[in-house]
């Protein structure tokens, strides 16, 4: 694997007095500097390069961990008015907008959201041109066959394709190069200072270096202490990259950039508690919640497990579990559920009786049996159908289970431990349709932001599958084009696409 790919010249420049940095060879001072190495950053780099700008991309991670959270993604939510290759039927702008409005509870920015939505309807030919392959939905994901275009091989395949294309087009890529601060002058970008102390100047810059989800200290501070005295975020797992430390996000906020979003808002799902601290990705999800019951550390249920289809509800369960004592819970199922949900990556705890299961997972068997007996007694007869919102529900138990409520009585029984898994945080920089970073509501003329750094403009809270990539791709491309433009390079073809996306 490649390590640090800095040339001898560049290493020498590190030691050079910064006064001489502007006199460095042109290779060291590109037109456009892209900080970050995930989907949004790559989209920016590719667009800026297509516009004719010289581009240097700085990725904090080594090559084998490149791509930020994009290496874990799997699809793109796409508006379309008619069937398109891998997308069936239609998913019109208005429906996409309503879906977004619903999940965010209105904490969004309609013009920017619609920009993202319309952009998603026309960006895929460009993605294909740079080597991204689409495929019909994966087995077990048919519910998004209409709304989401899947990347063949997932996000890492997409990231690989973009890096290959970028390097073929002449984008310079440097791994192992985290940036710790920027040199700004009246809202203009002057230079980036790397962790190693190197100063890199450029005519313009795109920040595409992610949220702060991997910064455990910051998470701890943001979530604070709950009424039980627990530091809630201490029990979080990070589903994505370990490299999103939020260094530049913090720097920009401290430097007076307008920010947006609540630091505790994030894409936060319930995942298997045994997942690794970082990079657990998709496979750590637990998909059997709606087929059984979920109990907390006190062996009590706390929410309607059958409120809606699991894919529509998994994004609220992270916060639900975060609110429980110890930020943990267990999904409990019986033999009837086996084979009806996506296979989990870790084996469940298995027992032949429910009290034995309680003991095995360390819960009070008496309380556990009270909970299970109360639930079982409340299950009303119905026709079970886990592919529909069926009529199997409880009566007279709180919280109710409104669908797929079946008596848990068939051994063996299984328990899967849950914890909140943070995918990415929504705190970011306020922006507009140009992707410019703003200071006191004045857009910078040469500093832009994309991806998770601006996702909070559209996603105030909640989530819907694939929308992170829709946002990252839209703002990434726009930021790249505008960064190139501010360096004097006009993108030859994007204007028309952008005009459509902007609704002009």
């Amino acid at each position, binding site marked *: 694997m490649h390590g640090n790919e800095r040339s001898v010249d560049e290493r020498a420049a590190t030691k050079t007095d910064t006064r001489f940095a502007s006199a460095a060879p042109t290779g060291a001072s590109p037109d456009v500097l892209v900080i970050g190495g995930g989907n949004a950053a790559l989209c920016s780099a590719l667009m800026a390069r297509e516009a004719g700008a010289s581009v240097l991309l700085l990725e904090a991670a080594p090559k084998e961990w490149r791509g930020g959270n994009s290496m874990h993604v799997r699809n793109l939510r796409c508006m379309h008015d008619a069937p398109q290759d891998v997308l069936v039927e239609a998913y019109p702008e208005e429906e996409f907008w309503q879906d977004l409005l619903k999940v965010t509870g209105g904490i969004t920015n309609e013009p920017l959201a619609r920009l993202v939505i319309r952009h998603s309807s026309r960006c895929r030919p460009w993605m294909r041109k740079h080597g991204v392959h689409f495929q019909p939905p994966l087995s077990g994901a048919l*519910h998004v066959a209409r709304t989401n275009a899947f990347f063949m091989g997932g996000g890492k*395949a997409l990231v690989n394709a973009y890096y290959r294309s970028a390097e073929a087009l002449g984008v310079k890529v440097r791994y192992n190069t985290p940036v710790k601060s920027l040199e700004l002058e009246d809202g203009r970008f002057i230079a980036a200072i790397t962790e190693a102390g190197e100063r890199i100047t450029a005519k313009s810059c795109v920040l595409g270096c992610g949220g702060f989800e991997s910064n455990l200290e910051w998470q701890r501070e943001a979530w604070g202490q709950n009424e039980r005295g627990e530091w809630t975020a201490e029990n979080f797992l990070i589903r994505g990259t370990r490299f999103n430390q939020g260094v530049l996000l913090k720097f920009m906020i401290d430097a007076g950039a307008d920010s947006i979003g609540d630091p505790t808002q994030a894409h936060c799902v319930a995942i298997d508690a045994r997942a*690794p601290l970082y990079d657990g990705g*998709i496979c750590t999800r637990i998909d059997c919640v709606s087929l059984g019951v979920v109990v907390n550390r006190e062996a009590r249920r706390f929410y309607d497990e059958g409120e809606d*289809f699991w894919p529509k509800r998994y994004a609220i369960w992270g916060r639900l579990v975060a609110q429980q004592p110890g930020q943990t819970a267990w999904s409990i199922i019986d033999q009837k559920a086996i084979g009806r949900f*996506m296979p989990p990556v870790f084996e469940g705890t298995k027992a032949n009786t429910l009290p034995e299961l309680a003991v095995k997972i360390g819960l009070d068997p008496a309380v556990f049996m009270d909970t299970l007996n109360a639930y079982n007694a409340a299950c009303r007869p119905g026709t079970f159908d*886990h592919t529909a919102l069926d009529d199997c529900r409880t009566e007279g138990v709180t919280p109710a289970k409104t669908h797929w409520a079946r008596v848990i009585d068939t051994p063996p029984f299984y328990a899967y431990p849950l914890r909140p898994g943070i995918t990415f945080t929504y705190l970011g920089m306020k922006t507009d349709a140009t992707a410019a970073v703003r200071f006191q509501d004045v857009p910078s003329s040469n500093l832009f932001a994309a991806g998770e750094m601006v996702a909070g403009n559209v996603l105030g809270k909640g989530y819907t599958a694939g929308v992170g990539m829709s946002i990252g791709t839209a703002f990434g491309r726009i930021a790249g084009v505008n960064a190139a433009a501010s360096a004097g390079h006009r993108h030859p073809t994007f204007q028309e696409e952008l005009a459509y996306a902007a609704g002009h």
Partner: protein
Amino acid sequence: MPPVTDMAAPIAGGACEGGVNLVAALSADEQEIARVMQICNACRYCEGFCAVFPAMTRRLEFNKADTHYLANLCHNCGSCLYACQYAPPHEFAVNVPQAMARLRVRTYQDYAWPRAFGRLYERAGLTVAFALSGGLALFMILAIAMNGRLIHEPLAGNFYAIFPHNFLASLFGVVFLFAVLALAIGVVRFWRAVSPTKDANAADIAAAAKARVPAVAEATHDIARLTYLGGGHGEGCNEDDDAFTLWRRRFHQVTLYGFLLCFAATSVATLYHYLLDLHAPYAFLSAPVILGTLGGIGLIIGPAGLLWLNLKRDAQRADVKQNAMDRGFIMLLLLVSVTGFALLLLRDTRVMALWLAIHLGTVMALFLTLPYGKFAHGIFRTAALLKFNIEKRMPNRLGLGGE
């Protein structure tokens, strides 16, 4: 690390297929596939690349026979390794192609007939070397014993002046039939272990019976076109990095069809000899020579290309212990074609007997090692593809619902 599939779970059906005990605990190589597949089954991002992942999604856990089947279904195209978010240095250390490659060679060995000969796979380099030196020595000695010398007055390409036709036909016939028999017994043992109708209910058996004809057609297509060296998107598979290339498919096609053309040349010559009473040497523009020449060209270009790709392939996804087997087989194919051409060019000279002995010795080495070397991959892969194409037409017992 996720635990492996519950090994205590009973595995129904025949306990033993050939020499393979299917209810024994999983071996380390099998456990690794079960472990990796459990991770992949919870992810599924690679479903579009090849047949392995769709086959995986029909299962919740992976027993011995499943791992044998999947190992032989994998073409080692590499797509899933470069696309994998859990590949090393991730702590899950998922490396599907390498896990599959390691077990795959074990299956050739374990299902081999006679069983004791399976060991030859372990020393594939030595096996090829012995077969080759033995073959060469045999024909040189025979040539000298039968003719007294290796250098002679030109014989106008009359091979049978050196070795009588019936002698060659019976010698190669016996060896070839043995190779076919050994491979057939091996693959039948494998098929019995992984059969799609094993432990199946009546409905499954009926579905499998109905699937047979279209499945054979599709499996034939998959082999003839090398579908799964296309990467799922048609841009090919990976070699030394995450970029896709069609060169492996092209070189393999040239090798496969070159081999078949050479086989056709031999078959036509045999028919000429026995049916039409036309005897070698055949003219340059005769059917056997044209077929053999085209096939020989294929068997030079194809193996040379495959060897080149093999040498620069990313070691991360290979099982380096198999290099000797892979490269030994490729070298034998190359030697057979090169010595064949040399013989064609020199058949009117004083060294014909020498080159005839060299060529026949090489061909003998190839025949002898067919059932105990890389050639077996074609037979086992064919069986695995046939199973895949039958199984996918059978009802899926899993219903994973909305997600």
